[in-house]
């Protein structure tokens, strides 16, 4: 299954691990830091903080995310078509959904414990950390591909399944800590429909199924589009992510105190550990373990914020967006992913 997410560039080299040592981790971290993706993100971050007028047009950013979702979903489907379903699919889906349901409770408790956020804001933030960041996931797959580490193709399906459950938990938390009806939950069938048929979920699952149906022959027809340029597109997309994160941070001065920022750094580690436990229990491959850690550690900034605006309009969007996009996303991108991969390698191949 080594080709699951291999980027087909023919430069993949199976990274043999006999034993493991710190220097190697550092080398990998450095290597990760020096990847064009990370540096593009840093460039965007720096440009925004320096108030450069560099911007990526909204339509272009949207299109790049459609491309990434389509490509990652399709590749996952083809991988499953090529290598067949090992028995773990159901388990992985169930595990991912469970994590998405459970993590908001952890996040909520932690926020109420160490920060001064209101129950409402804490619940809104918690929803983001139960859900996932697909770009973090995509970046992780390209890191794995670059190192020739295999991953289950169906992890994209797991990613899709983890987007929504966290929202339920968060809304339940709000109703329980009911902060007066004027700030009550605004939840209706229509919102559920919007969440579950959210564009990114539909495209991810849809392209996964297309890849599954067309398999290798389908891949042969479009790989020059979805495989070869993939990492380059990811660079420009991360450049834009950096710009948006930087602008968010600039605008959020004073909104986030150090406690809240601390949460944004601690929570992904907690999530990663939880993801690690679930993945090991399921007996996923090295790459699968790493990706499950990434999913659990990452925080949503697309599906969940939109849902929160509708369901919890009184919650302050600056808090959850800045935390998710300005703190946790960069943390996972720069430190988290290489660490999660290293740990996954150590524990599954050690």
């Amino acid at each position: 299954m080594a080709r699951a997410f291999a980027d087909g560039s023919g430069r993949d080299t199976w990274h043999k691990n006999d034993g493991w040592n710190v220097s190697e981790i550092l080398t990998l971290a450095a290597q990760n830091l020096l990847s064009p993706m990370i540096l593009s993100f840093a460039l965007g971050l720096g440009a925004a903080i320096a108030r450069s007028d560099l911007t990526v047009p909204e339509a272009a950013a949207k299109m790049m995310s459609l491309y990434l979702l389509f490509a990652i979903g399709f590749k996952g489907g083809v991988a499953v078509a090529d290598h067949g379903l090992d028995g773990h699919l159901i388990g992985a889906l169930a595990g991912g959904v469970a994590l998405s349901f459970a993590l908001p409770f952890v996040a909520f408790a932690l926020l109420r414990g160490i920060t001064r956020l209101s129950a409402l804001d804490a619940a809104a933030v918690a929803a983001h950390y139960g859900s996932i960041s697909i770009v973090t996931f995509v970046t992780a797959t390209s890191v794995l591909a670059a190192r020739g580490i295999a991953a289950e193709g169906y992890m994209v399906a797991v990613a899709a399944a983890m987007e929504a459950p966290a929202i339920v938990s968060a809304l339940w938390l709000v109703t329980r800590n009911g902060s007066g009806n004027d700030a009550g939950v605004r939840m209706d069938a229509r919102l559920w429909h919007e969440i579950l048929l959210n564009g990114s979920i539909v495209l991810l699952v849809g392209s996964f199924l297309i890849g599954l149906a067309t398999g290798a022959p389908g891949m042969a027809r479009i790989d020059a589009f979805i495989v070869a340029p993939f990492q380059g597109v990811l660079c420009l997309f991360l450049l834009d992510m950096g710009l948006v994160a930087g602008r968010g941070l600039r605008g959020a001065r004073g909104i986030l105190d150090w406690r809240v920022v601390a949460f944004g750094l601690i929570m992904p580690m907690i999530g990663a550990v939880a993801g690690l436990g679930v993945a090991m229990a399921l007996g996923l491959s090295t790459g699968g373990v790493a990706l499950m850690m990434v999913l659990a550690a990452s925080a949503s900034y697309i599906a969940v914020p939109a849902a929160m605006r509708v369901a919890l309009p009184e919650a302050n969007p600056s808090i959850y967006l800045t935390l998710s996009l300005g703190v946790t996303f960069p943390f996972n991108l720069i430190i988290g992913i290489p660490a999660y991969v290293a740990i996954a390698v150590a524990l599954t191949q050690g």
Partner: protein
Amino acid sequence: MQTHDAKRVEIIIEAPMEGRLTDALAAAGVTGFTVLPVLGGSGRSGQWSREGQVGRSGMVAVVCLVAPDRLDALLEAAFAVVQRHIGVVSVGDVQVIRPMRF
């Protein structure tokens, strides 16, 4: 040229609420409106810009021309949707050249 009194209602609201607003308008019998894009803005909840928006879906401006007697129904409907959300509603007097449309 002969014109007719009407009200121009301009509602600036978060994009995720657009569908709910227009449905509420339709329910209130207001079947005519135009939606304009918004690049950015500033208000009590701070300044924002659309550029490279990821995660923040921005806002839209909904413009409704209605006959004066329809105004209250429209405002009731709109306010029910807007009240708990950021955004603004303004009403101006205008003349229109096609009364039958309202």
